[in-house]
């Protein structure tokens, strides 16, 4: 062991250039398609190197707050503990909203239901439901006497965090006895083959599987039923299951590394940013948001707008204000 590590150390010393060479992006798997799209286009356009890792939102922040990465994708705002860790290490960051994502609640196409209320969803998924709620008529007496099969995103995902926060009111406060999976395609598979099933996942998965599963309209606070669509997410009417996606940028790296600043400028250039974000299946923010983002980068405006947690009912206009 000891001789092994010594020889490898000797081998490793000559070339630590890689770390400065390529722009380092990491973070949420939900934001990954966006990061990948920009990294690919930027590299094609300029020849500068960008690499993207997937450590999840939380894992990404750990690396980001150690100064290992310059950009960190996040499917929720930075938490207070994470911001504290950054501060401890002297890392200042810029919080840049990049897109809106909607979560959809899906049922089997054979299910005649078209709309559900947030309260009914809460009854189905909250902690107290464990082992008790197993029939559709327990959610609403008008629903048929049919067994209820629950699917959903795995507990390590930002999708799960946001769903529990928005529907149940507390992050992570869900029942444990539902089919939780990190791969949303499994949820599609399960719901498409079981007429009694219900599940929740990212809207992009629904768009790709129209006909196999049926997205439900959602009624929030006794309001009208709203269909999950990119338009309704854009206007901010599909609530509470619309959430912003972020890119956090290391301020010191922006100042000291020319390729980091160059990539950041490319990322928020409204000329192509909107098309690129849309091509990944997410909803791009309006042009004004990107113009504001460019100014924010130029002014190096640091800190988080979100006081350490998710907020329900965030609209693109709010994000514009945040910039």
């Amino acid at each position, binding site marked *: 062991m000891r001789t092994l590590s010594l020889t490898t150390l000797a081998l490793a010393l000559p070339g630590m250039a890689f770390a400065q060479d390529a722009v380092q992006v990491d973070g949420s798997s939900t934001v990954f398609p966006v990061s990948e799209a920009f990294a690919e286009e930027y590299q094609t356009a300029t020849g500068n190197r960008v690499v993207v*890792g997937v450590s999840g939102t939380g894992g990404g922040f750990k690396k980001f707050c150690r100064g290992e990465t310059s950009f960190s994708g996040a499917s929720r705002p930075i938490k207070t503990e994470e911001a504290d860790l950054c501060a401890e290490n002297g890392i200042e960051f810029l919080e840049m909203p990049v897109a809106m994502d909607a979560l959809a609640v899906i049922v089997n196409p054979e299910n005649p239901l078209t709309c559900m209320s947030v309260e009914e969803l809460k009854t189905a998924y909250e902690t107290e439901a464990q082992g008790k709620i197993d029939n559709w008529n327990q959610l609403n007496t008008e629903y048929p006497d049919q067994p209820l099969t629950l699917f959903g995103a795995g507990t390590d995902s930002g999708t799960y965090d946001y769903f529990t926060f928005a529907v149940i009111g507390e992050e992570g406060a869900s029942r444990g006895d539902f089919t939780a999976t990190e*791969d949303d395609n499994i949820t599609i598979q399960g719901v498409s083959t079981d007429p009694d099933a219900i599940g929740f996942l990212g809207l992009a998965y629904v768009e790709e599987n129209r006909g196999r599963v049926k997205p439900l309209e959602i009624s929030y606070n006794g309001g009208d039923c709203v269909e999950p669509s990119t338009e309704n997410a854009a206007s901010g009417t599909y609530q509470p299951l619309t959430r912003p996606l972020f890119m956090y940028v290391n301020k010191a790296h922006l100042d000291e590394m020319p390729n980091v600043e160059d990539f950041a400028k490319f990322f928020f250039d409204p000329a192509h940013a909107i098309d690129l974000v849309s091509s990944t299946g997410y909803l791009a923010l309006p042009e004004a948001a990107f113009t504001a983002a460019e100014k924010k980068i130029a002014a190096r405006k640091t800190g988080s707008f979100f006081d350490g947690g998710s907020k329900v009912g965030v609209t693109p206009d709010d994000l514009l204000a945040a910039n």
Partner: protein
Amino acid sequence: MSTTTQGALSAATTNQTAFDAVRKAKQKDILFATGGLVVMALAMTLLLALIGDLVIRGATRIDYGFLTSYPSRLPERAGILSAWVGSLLVMLVTAFLAIPIGIGAGLYLEEYARKGWLSNFIEINVSNLAGVPSIIYGLLALGLFVYGFSLGKTILVAGMTLALLILPIVIVSIREAVRAIPRIIKEGAYGLGADQWQVMWSYIIPAARPGILTGAIVGLSRAIGETAPIITIGALTFIAFLPPAPVTGEFPFISFAWLNDGFTVLPIQMFNWVSRPQAEFHVAAAATGVVLIALTFSLNGIAIWIRYRLRQGYRN
């Protein structure tokens, strides 16, 4: 007279009992063989069905462009160049570290180490390490190599991590190989006046070579499919350039700079594509799976061929 008849009768009964016993034993034999055949057929069918399904879904996607393109957000443009090059380079480092160290450790433990509580302790630990979940090696490597030695998230660290992971497997199989060598060979050599090093170099190592290669095959085949420890040490998911070439145009013609580059590997690329919403990415994932299986088979093929050649040489 009567006694003879009785004797013949009793002999006949004894014969009959013996025949019955043999028939019963044969029936059991057939039953067991059939059971074994059914289980084997079931396992093989399952394996072939899985591979077949992967090939049917992915094989048409594999073409020159797929193998020579970088990943892309557009499924039709996406390829696995950085992933298969990464996998191959990591395997190279793993083999280069795990096989010599494994051979050294295995031979020492089997031939040189004095039997006592210490060698027993080491033996138990080596056997137990072979069963430790791979993620634990990932965490160890993250703490020790990536942060402890500040080696970064490089091909070298990935190779070292996987080498640690397969080392117990390699050591155990090398010890088995050495143990399987007939004592008579060793003792004959000692009897002719050879010293320990001569016996080791001229008899034990050549005789154990096929077994050593088997250990290396089993270890590397496991390492190439590992995802968890590689993700833990910080492998990338999107990387659209290759590490610097190991051979350069100027003196000294060999460069080790590639060891310090970031990388991705085939299982990570596959995992990423499987979890995407677009069906075209799922096809690309299946194609990646086919390439991974092909790579594993060809690694095994090379090792089996070398083993075959060595066996021939040893017999002569």
